[in-house]
């Protein structure tokens, strides 16, 4: 019974696997100080950016690729990666959507991104990043009225260098880890968001990332700053074409929430996962971290991870401000030969800080799914509270599900709870549903939906549609 449905998912193709034939401005593969200077020059960056990149590069040379994660992959040749690839555009760059290469827009249409004006219905402002460069940002004017800055990272460097200099690298320093350091040296673009004091961002902000060119690494950097009493909800989606070789995606996301501010960051990650034999696919090695700097601030991560050959990311929250709140909701699906080592870190520093972790892992085929989390309560974090729940569903004989939670408590008033279980869908659960006239598929769908519901509920409406669509196909067929 299960085999039949498993086969369905095995046969399901990656529908975003097309390549767009677009002329692009691309560097030769390889990494050196020269390349970094060229990236910086191409972006017309101020001196502090170049120096920062070079310091990161010097530090990166002293590091070696980390080995502790529960994933296996051949050594990456960092000299064989193209560090800069930009769609060729008219010299002055696009000022409005009309000036953007129509083929590019066609690509986004295929992806279902409401980039055009009709997106007004969806009410989503989109910043689309193609390979390494941000190509278009919608609704700029409307956001500007509210005082919100939402633009590509390179634009921010030109127009708001003081904000960039003040906050860049303060949450994820360039020395943080191998991939974050690499990103700091070579990142070519990304998104920048600044919500001024007391502003509630009038719409959901969204970024779409797409890797198009072959042999390219995508290194983008996102920086979101929510000033006091502000609120923002940010969405991120990703796709890539089908290629036989592996491509590297090493992004860095930094969130900063000041007093009473709230940031909600949602991700639907659907990079190309490779084929049934595990050939190709994206290596998704991402560093995401938020700092709740202010009192009563809140950062919430929601992620739906269905793509990538290897996912390696730990969206974390540093709870510095008293009464600050961190949340992490995750559904991670691994099928075929996908590997995911994902989880979160909650660092409690302020008093009365609270964190919630809900993680759902689903493994099928030969997938390996690992939850790795850290909850750390420092001595000064009086009355810190954490609740962690991680659950894993195993759908085949050949997959694996692992849980590695680290809990470190140095304060007696802290209250920490962790619970986890790993199992397959119960025969009795299925029987119960079947008895009430549901087909196997419907029953399985219902049970799995119930399994993920707590996380789906956290997604913003605009995104829930896509996420559900993505998971439904994958989930429905893979359980039995």
């Amino acid at each position: 019974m299960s085999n039949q449905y498993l086969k369905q998912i095995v046969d399901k193709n990656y529908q975003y696997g097309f390549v767009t034939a677009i002329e692009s401005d691309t560097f030769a593969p390889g990494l050196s100080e020269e390349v970094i200077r060229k990236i910086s020059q191409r972006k017309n960056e101020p001196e502090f950016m170049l120096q920062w990149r070079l310091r990161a590069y010097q530090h990166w040379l002293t590091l070696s690729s980390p080995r502790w994660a529960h994933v296996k992959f051949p050594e990456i040749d960092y000299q064989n990666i193209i560090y800069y690839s930009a769609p060729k555009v008219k010299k002055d760059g696009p000022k409005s959507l009309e000036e953007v290469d129509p083929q590019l827009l066609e690509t986004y249409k295929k992806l279902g991104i409401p980039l055009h004006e009709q997106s007004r219905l969806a009410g989503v402002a989109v910043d689309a990043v193609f390979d390494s460069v941000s190509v278009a940002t919608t609704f700029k004017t409307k956001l500007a009225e509210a005082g919100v800055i939402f633009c590509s990272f390179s634009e921010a460097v030109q127009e708001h260098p003081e904000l960039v200099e003040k906050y860049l690298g303060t949450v994820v320093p360039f020395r943080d880890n191998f991939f974050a350091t690499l990103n700091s040296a070579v990142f070519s673009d990304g998104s920048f968001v600044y919500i001024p004091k007391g502003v509630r961002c009038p719409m959901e902000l969204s970024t779409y990332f797409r890797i198009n060119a072959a042999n390219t690494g995508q290194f983008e950097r996102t920086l979101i700053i929510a000033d006091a009493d502000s609120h923002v909800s940010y969405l991120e989606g990703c796709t890539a074409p089908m290629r036989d070789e592996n491509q590297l995606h090493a992004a860095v996301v930094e969130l900063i929430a000041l007093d009473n501010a709230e940031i909600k960051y949602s991700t639907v990650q659907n990079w190309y996962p490779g084929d049934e034999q595990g050939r190709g696919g994206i290596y998704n090695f991402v560093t995401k971290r938020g700092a709740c700097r202010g009192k009563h601030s809140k950062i919430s991560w929601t992620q739906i991870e269905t793509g990538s050959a290897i996912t390696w990311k730990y969206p974390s929250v540093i709870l510095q401000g008293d009464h600050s709140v961190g949340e992490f909701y995750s559904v991670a699906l691994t099928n075929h030969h996908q590997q995911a080592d994902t989880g979160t870190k909650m660092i409690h520093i302020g008093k009365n800080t609270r964190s919630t972790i809900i993680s759902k892992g689903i493994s099928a085929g030969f997938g390996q799914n690992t939850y790795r989390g850290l909850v750390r309560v420092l001595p000064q974090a009086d009355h810190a509270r954490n609740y962690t729940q991680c659950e894993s569903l195993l759908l085949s004989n050949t997959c694996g599900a692992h849980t590695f939670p680290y809990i470190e408590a140095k304060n007696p008033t802290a209250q920490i709870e962790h619970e986890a279980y790993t199992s397959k869908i119960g025969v009795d659960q299925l029987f119960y549903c079947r008895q009430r006239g549901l087909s196997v598929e419907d029953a399985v769908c219902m049970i799995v939906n119930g399994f993920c519901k707590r996380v789906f509920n956290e997604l913003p409406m605009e995104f829930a549609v896509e996420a559900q669509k993505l998971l439904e196909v994958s989930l429905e067929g893979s359980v039995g």
Partner: protein
Amino acid sequence: MSAVLTLSAWLENAFASTLTASQPSWLQAFRAQQFEKFLQRGLPTKREEWWKYTNVAYLEKTNFALAADSETSELEKYSDSTILLVFKNGRFLQEMSDLQLLPPDVILLPLSSALQTHEELIKPYLLQEPDEQRHPFTVLNGAFIGEGSFLYIPENCVVPYPIHLLFLNAQQNEFISAPRNIIVAKDNSHVKMIEEHRGNQAKNYFTNAVTELYAQANARLDYYKLQNEHDTATHIAHINVQQQQDSHVNAFFVDVGSRLAREDLTVHLHERHATCHMLGLYVLEQDEQHLDHHIYVDHKASHCTSSMLYKGVLDKKSQAVFNGKVYAHSGAKQTKAQQSNHNLLLSAAAEVNTKPELEIYEEDVKCVHGATIGQLDADALFYLRARGIEKEEALKILTQAFVEEIMDKITDPFMKDYIQQRTGHYARV
């Protein structure tokens, strides 16, 4: 690597003084090889995942030597109806041991005697090669094999009285003792035993113990360990359990002593329907007291069950580490595994690092784990205070209740009584 050199200085001396001509040549060769292996590996550091929270660097600075011959001491037996083997500072004490109740077909000997009388029987159990990266101190113990105990229960034999292995450490300072215990329970046999380490007027000594438990088909083994070393002592132990079909092992750990204690428990469930229940209680009430439990349960066959329940009370500036790992191999169908670790922090300086892990390669499993860290319930405390109970007394009552859950799992009343008396005020009822 200067660290290894300073370490090897006292090690070389200690090792040289244990080389006696009376040991069989195969053992001498094996010990020399294990010694070499340990020297090459060196002491584990905090950069290693298995030693992330436990720092043993100070061991290289202490000049441990072998204990000199010692006189007998006063001691109390926990019941008259026990079979007792006593070791003092790592040496066997014939006159204090009591083997009267031992059934005639059961072998219970100090290792040094067993090597002379049962050399061929014991040889395969001693020549085990541990992974030096994971268990460096087991390798070190291998280099010092000489004393310990050998217990062999033949098929279909039920030992009617508990067996008590008592390791006394008294009246000397800065010595190393490395007991090796081998317990073999053959098919359908049943034994109940306690391994006790007790410190008394001895300081800064180092116990490096290894206990190998073999539970053959349908054997039942109840193993209690009571670690009550002096609060300046270092106690590093590895308990390695090998289980065959339908065997049942209960392992119970009580840790109250030592400045630094490390309990490595590895359980291998080789065949179907093997069951292992692990229980642990630790009460740390000294400043700078450190306890580390590392448990690894290897589910290799189908229909096996394992459970862990560890509870700890931490006061003053003490630290506890818990790392429980369940590994289910592909094909280990119908695996049932449970892990839980609960910690009660009584002081602001106490620290707990806990990591219950699951690594599962089989779909047909039910694995659950949970961990909590917290302090006593303020409402419960208020309830007691409102009834006129002093704060200190109320705290004690609540802590006792926390501990009681574990104590209740000891089914043997004599054993329970004996352990309760040695666990400190929180365990007494």
